[in-house]
């Protein structure tokens, strides 16, 4: 995949260097440094108010950082956009009235230094069937797909999507991610913010988690899960009660439903061996990593203060 390489091979698609954005006293983004290599699909996660949208706005040159530097393919954000490196789909927004989808996309291709044929854009975004419809008379899911089409109207190297599937039904969402995967296979770098963590889990090569405007985690999905440090042990053990298991080492939470036990642990090996050492012989054993969603909740809670995970432990006992 060399189609997406700009600014020399190996150079990053996006670099944030000590980027901060203040609104009065509020630090929406605080000394954020990160790097996104070319050709990756990157999920950008964080709770509401974590600074995701502000970071994306700065990346796209819509807002200026209070301090720090952002480079996009080695250029400033605005220059990168003017050069056609970046296609973006913003979080919200309607489409203009009195134009068809095709006319709107024709315009967008003309506003790109490296335009794609309109029919190709329609095909890639899966909206050929609504090309002749009026752009402001579409359903929510269709509107989102047209907005995605706007983001890919040119042969951009980086595609930025701010919560692209908000308001889409399941079917639309699947169609959408298919279209996105196809973009990734063309060697594009994709950065998407989302609230749907299963999407990030399935699609992202790299996950960036921010909280309170700071970088919290940056790695593969497996890295994030490992950083959360939790695994899940699940087994069947007839006749067991809470009192038997709650003193096991490294247990974070414990749940027993009839004879089915579910344990969240920060060290599945230790916890499991001590179950055996205590003389129990559980059946139907499953040891799994947490889902990305649970990992995400765990690391943001850890970051929000030591009291948050402690409360979980207390709850378990």
């Amino acid at each position, binding site marked *: 995949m060399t189609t997406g390489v700009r600014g020399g091979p190996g150079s990053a698609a996006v670099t944030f260097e000590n980027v901060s954005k203040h609104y009065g006293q509020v630090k929406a983004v605080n000394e954020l440094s990160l790097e996104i290599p070319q050709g990756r699909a990157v999920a950008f996660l964080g709770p509401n108010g974590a600074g995701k949208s502000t970071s994306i706005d700065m990346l796209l040159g819509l807002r200026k950082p209070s301090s720090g530097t952002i480079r996009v393919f080695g250029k400033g954000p605005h220059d990168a956009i003017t050069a056609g490196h970046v296609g973006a789909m913003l979080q919200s927004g309607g489409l203009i009235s*009195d134009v068809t989808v095709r006319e709107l996309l024709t315009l967008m291709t003309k506003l790109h230094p490296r335009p794609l044929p309109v029919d190709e854009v329609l095909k890639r975004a899966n909206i050929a069937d609504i090309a002749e419809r009026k752009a402001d008379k579409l359903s929510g899911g269709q509107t989102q797909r047209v907005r995605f089409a706007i983001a890919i109207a040119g042969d951009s190297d980086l595609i930025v999507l701010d919560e692209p599937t908000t308001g889409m039904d399941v079917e639309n969402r699947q169609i959408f991610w298919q279209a996105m995967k196809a973009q990734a296979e063309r060697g594009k770098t994709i950065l998407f913010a989302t609230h749907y963590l299963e999407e990030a889990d399935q699609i992202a090569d790299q996950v960036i988690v921010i909280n309170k405007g700071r970088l919290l985690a940056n790695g593969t999905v497996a890295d994030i899960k490992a950083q959360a440090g939790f695994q899940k042990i699940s087994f069947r053990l007839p006749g067991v009660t809470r009192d038997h298991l709650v003193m096991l080492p490294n247990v974070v939470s414990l749940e027993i439903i009839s004879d089915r036990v579910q344990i969240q642990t920060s060290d599945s090996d230790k916890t499991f061996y001590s179950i055996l050492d205590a003389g129990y012989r559980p059946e139907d054993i499953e040891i799994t990593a947490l889902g990305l969603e649970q990992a995400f909740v765990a690391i943001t809670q850890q970051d929000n203060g030591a009291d948050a995970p402690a409360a979980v432990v207390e709850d378990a006992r």
Partner: protein
Amino acid sequence: MTGVIALTRLEILRALRNRRVMFFTILYPTVLFLLTAGTAPASKMVDGTHLSLRTYFLIAYASFGALGAALTTNAQKIATERKEGWIRQLRLTALPGNGYVISKIASATLITIPAIAIVFIVGGSMGVHLSAAKWLAAFLVLWAGALAFTALGIAIGYGVPQDSVQIVTILVYVGGSFLGGQFFPLGGGALENVGKALPTYQVRQLAQDVITGAHVPSSGIAILIAWTVGASVLAARMYRRGVDAG
């Protein structure tokens, strides 16, 4: 530049398809002109002048159409498109930073042409006789004068909160026309003195003076230019503010 042209072309297409725009630009001024000028006897003069009432209304309603075309469309569209995030979306393209505003100015300037022409054509068919040079001169004055309204429309679209844009636009549109003598000759007095400060009055008066061959007062031109420049500066400032706010 091709981007700005493509956007302008689409803006004109959108305006031509929009019933609201067609109403304010073509239908409303023409119907009002027919109702007023059509019912006035051909020989009736504006009090104290040698100008026929029909010719007066011809100029008045052509300038009214130009006002509607230049002001109402842009004010509404810009406010809506700001709210909907369209302007932000355009900022994520290679379109030059002022490309959006340029396209709005260009499309308003072009849409003003039929707004003036339709009243001229209807007026001509009703027996208003002018030399070709006077038709052309009046047209050019009204057309160029409409720049003040275009700038005002942009300033309102960017500067007024979205939910107040409609009412402010209607106030400027109707109020400006009322005091500008678009609906009836002001006939001297306090009303006319107030009206003289407004671009609606001065555009109409200037076009009328060109037709009658009356002396064109430089104060009138100065007022019109002041409005055009003032509204443009305001529009530019509001536009910058809109840009910073995202």
